[in-house]
């Protein structure tokens, strides 16, 4: 349903009122809110399934400490508004803290300049938390280029030159994913990758030791924090998934029987 409105000489077309997508949004908000509330209050104690890729982070850092070689971490191409980059950053904080604790050099690269101020603050805080603020090196947080393949060659060079012991690729990746993974392989690094870009997942699955597929990347930050509020949001997210599955099943059956109201109502 659309209505036309005029604002000055500019005509705008906006969606009017209560459509299925909006109702779904409000319902999602309510369910996640409820999930968080119930977990914080201790009514529910959700247990999160293990994410081997995230559990292997410590192994990566430990290996780097043993070998005396650095850990390379990149959030890829996205800007600070990208959900995959935000997820990548929340994992980066944990990795940076563990690196600081074990005295491992932490190399962080990114492509969008908007990530710079955030990454510097975040990693500095992680070093502070580990009680080693003096070991924080701002020059190890590197903006290489905002051009995709210039960035890719920059990362490749860095990983090979510094002989990274771990190559962590968690964020937004496009065609350069294989260049990163190949560089990690040549440097003999242990590799963990994660992205929601379905067309890059196969490259990571075949070349990396562990891959966080789709939502695993987004939830990893909450998984690591183990904080009730964050865990509660994962619970809410699973309830939404359940509702989605039920709606899909019911919708498919009803559609097959010729009753299309539900499908129309959901705006599909």
């Amino acid at each position, binding site marked *: 349903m659309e*209505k036309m409105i005029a604002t000055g000489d500019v005509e705008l077309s906006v969606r009017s009122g209560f459509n299925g997508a909006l109702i779904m949004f409000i319902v999602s908000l309510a369910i996640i809110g409820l999930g968080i509330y119930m977990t914080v209050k201790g009514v529910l104690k959700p247990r999160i399934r293990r994410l081997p890729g995230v559990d292997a982070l410590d192994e990566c850092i430990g290996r780097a400490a043993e070998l005396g070689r650095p850990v390379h971490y990149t959030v890829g191409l996205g800007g600070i508004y990208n959900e995959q980059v935000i997820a990548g950053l929340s994992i980066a904080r944990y990795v940076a803290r563990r690196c600081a604790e074990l005295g491992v050099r932490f190399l962080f690269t990114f492509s969008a*300049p908007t990530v710079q101020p955030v990454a510097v*603050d975040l990693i500095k805080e992680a070093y502070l938390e580990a009680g080693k603020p003096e070991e924080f090196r701002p020059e190890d947080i590197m903006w290489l280029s905002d051009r995709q393949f210039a960035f890719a060659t920059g990362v490749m060079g860095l990983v090979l030159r510094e002989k990274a012991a771990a190559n962590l690729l968690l964020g937004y990746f496009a065609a350069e994913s*294989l260049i990163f993974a190949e560089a990690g392989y040549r440097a003999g690094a242990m590799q963990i990758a994660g992205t929601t870009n*379905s067309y890059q997942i196969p490259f990571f699955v075949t070349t990396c030791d562990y891959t966080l597929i789709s939502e695993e990347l987004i*939830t990893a*930050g909450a998984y690591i924090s183990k904080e009730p509020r964050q865990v509660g949001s994962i619970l809410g997210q699973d309830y939404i998934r359940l509702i989605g599955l039920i709606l899909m099943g019911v919708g498919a059956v009803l559609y097959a029987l010729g009753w299309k109201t539900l499908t129309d109502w959901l705006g599909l």
Partner: protein
Amino acid sequence: MSVVLRRHIPIIILASLAFFMVGDTLLLDPTYNAYAASARSVVSIIGSFAVMLSVTLLSRIHIRRIQRRRNVIESSVLLICMWTTIAWGLYRFAFFGEKPSVEYITQSIFRGIVSPGDATIYSILAFFIASAAYRAFRARSLEATVLLAAGIIVMLGNAPVGEAIWGGFKPMTTWIMDVANKAGARVIIMSAIIATIALYIRIILGYERSWMGRGE
């Protein structure tokens, strides 16, 4: 004060703007919708300003290198080229109204240097894909074998040679892409969206603060 400034105020700004933009899809009010349209333009403007941030960052990195007498020639050449290009673009735009996207010299740089460079690095992927396929694409388990078989079929189905070898590759590729792949891709997209909704709600509520460089 610093906690309020650095933690609470950004979250309040973010949450109010988020709900304001959600309201745009809910309310049909010309003034409200026009403001929301302006808010969207602001995003474009801020995004364009990020270019200035990258120019500053790059200049700072290379000036520091020159000061420390490391890669002096490379850094100087880079800085001179970058600032000359910027100055030229601004001059042409300010005095002749030519956008850099159609201005001759800028376009020549793109066509003559940037495009071939990009295409070269991208084409290196052909070697990496071949090497990764040879090295890593092994039938180690049942799942890997299924993946391997599907990969081979799709590769042959997507090139004319596949059909020249056996007519069945094309229909099998179509089935794999249109049924099996479609189901998998939909799962990945949907699960990512649900997780993203939860992430955004955590951000709006201020539980997830990595976007502003803060932890708990």
